[in-house]
């Protein structure tokens, strides 16, 4: 009996334990989310929830699985299937629930998931958010000691043109911020050449409002394309910089020094440049004076430059970051010498004449500028921002030009010998303050602002001109001689003050109302004295003026914004009335004008998905004629080109519309950028020319009512990885067109132009080599209604470059740029030019931060300074003195030392 009971108990226990063992199980059914298809052979693994140790695994049978013989405890289930996102979920097995049934487990295709959610493991190169495009620097490889410039070149949609201007999706970038703060900001080239690429975590590109719009709260339609460089946490503290020196054939030399010391609360930077190669020492300001942009390019390519400049930056935060100061100082000088010869063909109704001129010049310009911004959080609800900037500029220039104009039939029309000598001084001071107070109700704020600007300039100009006119037969008719001293003096004072008030309704809607008052007082004298024996003391009243101009403007703005996470809409309008009062100090003649300007604006942004956004902007504005267009003054600085003012001008009104669509697919690293823009102008102020029988052209401004000039621009870019070679392929199509009008000898002239330039661009960058290749045809249509022949032409360009490391730390690089423009009805010769530069060198030291380079510029010696240009009613060919072939030996030392990482990098 006993033994029976014992056996029974043992049996029971055994069964019980056996049951308990096999009882602990997990089961479920695996299927695809979208199609509901059962997923055969999916891998199911059971892991221990504490340490991820694999317990058991199985493969699903037509989607179903059942894993038994588990122990009680906390587990993770992991389901994998190729191309599908992992499914991971925790579950617990215990006596109360020995079998866990997951039911239907839905798997999501990775490609689908990745398009919707950004997965951390893969480096996503681009994020698109509202109007901001953000590039993740980790997704781009750069060589050791590379600078931000080398990183920017790789970003999709970003180009750096030959003059060094950074262009993003067709628009030039005018500001670079570092961690959201100004850092030599008006000089993007300087930042991009100074800051190291390995310090960058993210590059954000967006449009900022102009400083003026930010100050007053009144939209002025100006968009400042801005790049913000976000630094890596571990590179925010350290010292870095560069020393560079080179000497070459024909006495070419460069010297460059950059030093930076960054810490969490403080940034100190200083730089100095000297050189005559046109590649260093030309800061943004200098270059923009030559209207050619900034940076690596040149000073306009015209003449031989000798540049030296330097600058310093300091910014700091203190008092728990409540107070900040940001100061930039720059000093520089540029001497340029050169000569140029120009051939211009002016088109007249039924005729044309050709002017050839040879000129030589010598220019000197020096400038100093200081910009300081101080911000303070007065308390938790109010901020104060004050800014003081100043600029001092002095310049000298000597020019001499000899020109000859021939009639269309080849007979001499006139002959001009002109020499000028100028010296000028310019001073500018600007100060502004802005106080913002956030009121108790969320979203309600008041802002007060005030600013003052003083500009002063004076110049002493000497001018000698001998202009000889010839008759129809080519005989000397008359000679007009000018020998004058022309001092000018200009002073402008303006003050402005205003306030704006913002109120938020229903969480998403904000309304801003603003008012701004400004007054501007100008006194300007431009005198001309004829010479009597040794002194210039006979006033030539025909070409002298002295007037005072006072402008009072009241501007009222109202805008309404609606912002949610996906949508941003802003509609605004501003009206300003300006009254101008001009006193002519010579004629005691007063001219009073009143203008009412109206500026409506609207912008709309919509985030289509995590990776796509559309933007639509409209901006309409009245353009008030400027005072030089209104002046009834005569100038004789160029006796062959006389410009007259027109006091009866009315404002013109222009409508601008732009559309932008951006899409990026992170899984495939490819995307689209589309940008379309158009402008239509009403009541345009046009420049009308009358050319008399002596070849003197007189132009005057007037409003054009009958016709409306238009211009439009389209840029479409596709980029992605097209082949297994893993380079980025970008297909671009650019079209722009315009039609413009003016009167030439009282006949309406319409000039139309269309430019098509599709191109293909490929590039690849790795830590050891990089290459790029760019090719495309160009087709221009350019016609003017006054002439039968058009200036249609086609051309072709290609750019190729590579850079690679060689064994024993040598490296080699080369860049080629080829341009071709075919001859046409205007220019009877093809134009083709190959610019080739190469360098070879060796890196030293462990970090490869000491570099010796031998480089050759323009190896084929084809940079002849030739350029040609066709405009509304004239065609011009120019040849300038320029920097040609030279070889240079240079030594570069990059130094950097960064502190310990404060936060681990993700």
């Amino acid at each position, binding site marked *: 009996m006993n033994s029976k009971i014992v056996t029974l108990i043992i049996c029971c226990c055994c069964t019980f334990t056996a049951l308990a063992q096999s009882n602990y199980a997990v089961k479920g059914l695996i299927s695809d989310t979208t199609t509901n298809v059962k997923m055969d*052979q999916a891998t199911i693994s059971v892991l221990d929830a504490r340490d*991820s*140790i694999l317990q058991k695994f199985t493969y699903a049978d037509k989607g179903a699985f059942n894993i038994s013989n588990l122990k009680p405890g906390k587990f993770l289930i992991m389901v994998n299937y*190729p191309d599908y996102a992992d499914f991971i979920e925790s579950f617990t097995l215990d006596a109360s629930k020995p079998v866990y049934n997951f039911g239907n487990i839905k798997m999501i*295709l990775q490609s689908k998931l990745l398009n919707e959610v950004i997965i951390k493991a893969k480096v996503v190169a681009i994020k698109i958010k509202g109007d901001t495009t953000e590039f993740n620097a980790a997704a781009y490889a750069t060589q050791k000691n590379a600078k931000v410039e080398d990183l920017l070149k790789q970003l999709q949609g970003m180009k750096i043109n030959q003059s060094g201007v950074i262009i993003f999706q067709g628009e030039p970038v005018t500001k670079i911020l570092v961690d959201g703060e100004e850092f030599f900001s008006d000089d993007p080239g300087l930042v991009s050449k100074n800051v190291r690429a390995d310090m960058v975590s993210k590059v954000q590109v967006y449009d900022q409002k102009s400083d003026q719009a930010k100050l007053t709260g009144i939209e002025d339609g100006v968009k400042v394309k801005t790049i913000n460089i976000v630094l890596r946490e571990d590179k925010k503290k350290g010292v870095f910089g560069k020393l560079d020196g080179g000497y070459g054939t024909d006495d070419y030399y460069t010297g460059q020094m950059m030093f930076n010391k960054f810490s969490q609360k403080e940034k100190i930077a200083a730089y100095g440049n000297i050189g005559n190669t046109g590649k260093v020492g030309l800061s943004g300001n200098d270059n923009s004076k030559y209207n050619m942009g900034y940076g690596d390019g040149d000073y306009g390519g015209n003449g031989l430059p000798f540049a030296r400049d330097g600058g310093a930056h300091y910014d700091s935060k203190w008092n728990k970051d409540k107070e900040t100061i940001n100061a930039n100082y720059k000093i520089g000088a540029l001497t340029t010498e050169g000569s140029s010869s120009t051939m211009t063909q002016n088109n007249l109704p039924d005729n044309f004449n050709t002017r050839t001129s040879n000129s030589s010049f010598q220019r000197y310009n020096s400038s100093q500028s200081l910009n300081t911004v101080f911000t303070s959080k007065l308390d938790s609800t109010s901020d104060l921002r004050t800014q003081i900037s100043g600029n001092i500029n002095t310049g000298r220039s000597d020019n001499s030009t000899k020109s000859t104009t021939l009639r269309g039939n080849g007979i001499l029309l006139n002959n001009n010998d002109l020499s000028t000598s100028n010296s000028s001084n310019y001073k500018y001071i600007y100060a502004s303050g802005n106080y913002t107070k956030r009121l108790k109700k969320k979203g309600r704020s008041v802002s007060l602002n005030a600013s003052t600007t003083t500009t002063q300039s004076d110049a002493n100009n000497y001018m000698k001109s001998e202009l000889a006119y010839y008759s129809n037969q080519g005989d000397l008719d008359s000679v007009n001689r000018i020998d004058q001293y022309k001092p000018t003096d200009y002073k402008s004072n303006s003050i402005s003050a205003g306030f704006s008030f913002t109120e938020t309704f229903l969480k998403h809607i904000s309304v801003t109302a603003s008012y701004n008052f400004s007054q501007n007082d100008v006194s300007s004298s431009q005198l001309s004295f004829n010479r009597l024996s040794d002194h210039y003391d006979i006033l030539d009243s025909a070409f002298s003026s002295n007037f005072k101009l006072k402008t009072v403007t009241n501007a009222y703005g109202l805008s309404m914004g609606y912002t949610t996470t996906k949508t941003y809409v802003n509609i605004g309008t501003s009206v300003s009335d300006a009254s101008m009062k001009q006193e002519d100090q010579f004629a005691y003649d007063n001219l009073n004008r009143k203008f009412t300007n109206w500026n409506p604006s609207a912008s709309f942004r919509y985030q289509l998905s995590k990776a796509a956004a559309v933007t639509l902007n409209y901006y309409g504005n009245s353009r008030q004629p400027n005072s030089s267009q209104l002046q009834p003054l005569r100038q004789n600085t160029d006796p062959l080109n006389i410009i007259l003012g027109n006091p009866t001008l009315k404002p013109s009104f222009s409508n601008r519309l732009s559309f932008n669509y951006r899409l990026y*697919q992170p899984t495939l690293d490819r995307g*689209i950028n589309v940008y379309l823009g158009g402008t239509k102008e009403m009541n345009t102020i046009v420049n009308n020319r009358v050319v008399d029988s002596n070849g003197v052209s007189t132009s005057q401004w007037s409003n054009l009512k009958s016709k409306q000039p238009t211009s439009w621009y389209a840029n479409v870019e*596709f980029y992605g990885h097209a082949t297994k070679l893993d380079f980025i392929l970008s297909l671009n199509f650019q079209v722009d067109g315009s039609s413009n009008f003016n009167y030439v000898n009282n006949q309406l002239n319409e000039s139309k132009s269309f430019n098509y330039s599709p191109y293909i661009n490929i590039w690849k960058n790795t830590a050891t080599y990089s290459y790029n290749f760019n090719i495309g045809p160009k087709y221009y249509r350019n016609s003017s209604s006054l002439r039968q022949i058009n200036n249609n032409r086609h051309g072709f360009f290609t750019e190729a470059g590579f850079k690679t490391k060689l064994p024993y730390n040598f490296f080699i690089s080369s860049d080629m740029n080829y341009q071709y423009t075919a001859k046409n009805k205007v220019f009877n010769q093809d134009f083709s030019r190959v610019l080739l530069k190469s360098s070879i060198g060796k890196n030293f030291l462990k970090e490869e931060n000491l570099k010796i380079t031998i480089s050759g510029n323009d190896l084929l010696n084809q940079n002849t300074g030739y350029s040609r240009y066709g405009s509304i009613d004239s065609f011009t060919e120019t040849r300038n003195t320029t920097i040609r072939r030279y070889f240079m030996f240079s030594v570069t030392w990059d130094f950097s030392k960064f502190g310990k990482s404060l936060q681990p990098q993700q």
Partner: protein
Amino acid sequence: MKYVSQFFICLLILGANTLFAQNKHFITSGVIEFERTANMFALVKKKVTKHTMENKPFYEQYLRTEPQFRTLKSKLTFDNNTTLFTPIAPEKGVHWWYDTPMANQLNHVFSDLDNRTSIIQKEFYERTYLVKDSLRNIKWKMTDETREIAGYKCRRANALILDSIYIVAFYTDEIHVSGGPESFNGLPGMILGVAVPHENVTWFATKVTETSIVKKTLVPPKTGKEINNKLLKEEILKTINNHGDYAIVELKGLLL
């Protein structure tokens, strides 16, 4: 041009995701080629111990005259749940001055994954053993790290074997065989990569060929003295117990 047009077509149908779940094909039989890379500088250095400083000139000579990495090839044939790992004899041996078990491929491994048994033909010190025992049982710690090996997406798992040797393995769930090179096994898919960081050796698959396997070719090795793991370890210990500090290095190399 083909790529370009594909590129455009893909871009034009953006947003609309037209991909559907497809029944993926899973491999259950075939041949995998492996490459075993050993860092010889590190391995030879291990021959220089406190008590064998006389080996130092050999090590220094090695640094000057020999390449850092020794690469050996092998082949893993698998059909359903049976696998056979066969080393391919190298063209060039290692000079006896520098030789160490970890520099060579000692094992032909036949594994029966269903019955969890293995037959290993192990050759060392001119002796051949036939080790018949159960499969090596490895506790794998799974991670979420992935990498691609031989065109297959692999997941990383870590483990400790032989009490103290840290190994990193990468397996793919596209090959539904729970095996791997040498005696590595037990993951929910084929192991295509193994790194033994502290022993300075790695195995990585270079090529995966799916093919049906003739049963005849997938047979266990036959030559050698039959033995089990426990007795083998005793035999080895007997041979190397007078090798001083270096013995433990040899033991790891012989047992791995």
